[in-house]
């Protein structure tokens, strides 16, 4: 079953492009956003990968943590883009949730907070979801297109809100805040033991810092938790759809199937699989070798014929992978995009890719 992105996204407000690394997620996200803008929507594409080339391909010198309008011929529609800066988003979040300036400064100035919010790994996923939610709440766009983080485990972001909820779970907070480090209050025996073992791992100083962090963070916990819950709801909402980007290689297909199954388990709405970089099958022809040798002479003709056979093998492999994927996904919508000769690095290239997506 083939599909058009325009139909899939007709009544959607959020499109999440997911898949393993190097399959063309960022480019697909940008092409989807451009195509929908050309169909009259106000669209923003959010990317996390700081690859400057996406910015350049959209005609922007660079992308920052602010929404930037992309100068493209989109008629009534508008195309916007933004690169998420995890640290900035985290800081903004703290500012908006802090009950007062004192709490805000305590968290932002906490050494643990500074280090972990700078260490990008892990916090990217939270922040992507967070920004998505914020933009959706504000309602200034018809469609949000999210290019998911390039983690090998493409599912990390699905669990991000749950992990964050648990992190700031009241029990976790109590663990550190009930009476402080040196046992002024009485722990339950289990917790007391865990705490004293933990102290042996971290040392007293680090544990004190962690406790300080949680104590200053404590007042913001309910806000964070509630928000993380709403983000999960938003992802599962019928106004959201997931595009699963893959390439027709066996390992990428395996990951795509795994991802599809995980989406289904998590109750997330699956839109279509975009199979990128398909090699086109050359026409069949007996005697094609003889024919090109006649056309070009035996030496060059042989090389041309050899090259044709190599690309035929690639195309046949791609067809096999595609039918394997089709079978394993159970007749879900699929969109094929051919392997482009040039890597896409401008609006024209995105529009060309759009011809296959739409």
């Amino acid at each position, binding site marked *: 079953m083939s599909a058009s992105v325009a139909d899939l996204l007709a009544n959607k407000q959020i499109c999440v492009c997911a898949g393993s690394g190097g399959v063309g997620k960022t480019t697909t996200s940008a092409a989807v956003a451009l195509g929908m803008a050309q169909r009259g929507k106000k669209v923003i594409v959010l990317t996390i990968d700081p690859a400057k080339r996406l910015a350049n391909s959209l005609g922007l010198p660079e992308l920052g943590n602010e929404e930037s309008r992309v100068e493209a011929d989109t008629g009534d529609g508008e195309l916007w883009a933004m690169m998420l800066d995890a640290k900035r988003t985290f800081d903004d979040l703290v500012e908006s949730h802090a009950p007062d300036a004192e709490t805000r400064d305590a968290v932002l100035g906490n050494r643990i907070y500074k280090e*972990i919010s700078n260490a990008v790994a892990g916090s990217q996923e939270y922040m992507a979801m967070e920004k998505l939610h914020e933009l959706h709440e504000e309602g200034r766009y018809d469609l949000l297109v999210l290019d998911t983080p390039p*983690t090998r485990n493409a599912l990390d972001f699905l669990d991000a809100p749950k992990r964050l909820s648990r*992190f700031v779970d009241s029990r976790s907070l109590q663990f550190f805040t009930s009476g402080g480090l040196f046992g002024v209050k009485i722990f339950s025996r289990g917790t007391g033991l865990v705490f004293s073992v933990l102290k042996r791992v971290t040392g007293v100083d680090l544990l004190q810092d962690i406790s300080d962090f949680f104590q200053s963070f404590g007042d913001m916990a309910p806000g964070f938790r509630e928000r993380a819950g709403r983000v999960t709801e938003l992802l599962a909402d019928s106004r959201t759809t997931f595009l699963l980007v893959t390439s027709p290689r066996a390992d990428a297909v395996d990951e795509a199937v795994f991802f599809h199954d995980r989406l289904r388990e998590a109750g997330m709405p699956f839109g279509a699989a975009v199979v990128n970089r398909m090699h086109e099958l050359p026409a069949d022809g007996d005697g094609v070798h003889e024919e090109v040798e*006649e056309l070009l002479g035996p030496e060059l003709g042989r090389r041309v014929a050899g090259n044709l056979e190599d690309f035929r093998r690639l195309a046949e492999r791609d067809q096999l992978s595609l039918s394997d994927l089709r079978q394993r996904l159970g007749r879900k919508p699929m969109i094929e995009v051919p392997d482009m000769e040039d890597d896409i690095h401008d609006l024209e290239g995105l529009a060309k890719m759009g011809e296959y997506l739409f």
Partner: protein
Amino acid sequence: MSGILDKRLVFVTGKGGTGKTIVSAALGLVAARQGKRTMVCEVAEQNRIPALFGREGAGFTEVELAESLYAISVDPEHAREEWLKFQLRSGALAGVLNGNRIFSYLAAAAPGLAELVTIGKVWELAQLERKTAKASPYDVVIVDAPATGHGVAMLGAPKTFRDAARVGPVANQAAKIHTFLASPRQTAVVAVALAEDMPVNETLDLAGRLHDEMGQHLQAIVVNAVYPERFSGADAEAIASADGRPSQAARDGLDAALSEHRRAKAQRSQLRRLRSEAEAPVSTLPFLFEPEIGRDEVEALSRELERRLV
């Protein structure tokens, strides 16, 4: 590229989809053929390297794939359990933490902790005096690392924790690991790229980030999947101006040849750019037209790599 296999640790990263796993496996074969006791380590909760050798992976267990060649897949949960055991010098005490739900929630969500314990296990594998009971040392450990951004974060995790903890056992351990990773004598970082615009940019960017964040540098760049130079400019002209009324099949053949010519040319120009802007030596590996990559293909790639390692 000479000398990278003489390091204790080879960290293979690069843009997603460039073939890091296959290059890691091929590097592993080269080292094993040189008689080195070699470990190829995956960190993505997959067992792709054993699969390349037609074997089932054993996860967090060191398994022998071929003579002198071993594999392991490091996952954060096992790495964390083991790390706690080493830190506490007691399985029972580690069990107290690992069995506690709140601790496991905190540990699962604490930013950077998964990266820290994973790279910590990689470091342990690369030590001459192993902490793991009855474990033998390896001459070289090759890590099939995550893609660039996440890879750099993993390399930088010990430094982050050293700075966050300042003093105490976590800081001491993290500092030791960081010193090892930041030393070009002990750790070589290798980038795998494709001869395309974005992967070349990402590779150049990686070199800068390694320098800024780790004081490290790229010691080698492997450009994967380079098309053969099948057709010269003159060939292309001859093909483009072929006389006659070719059948559709023949026309597809001519088009495929012209397309190959243009792609190979574009790749060469990206390679030139990479070579002129990158400080690390650049080697290339050929594009493989085989539909599936298995042991024979990895073996062939390892021979290609070996020629460039001399």
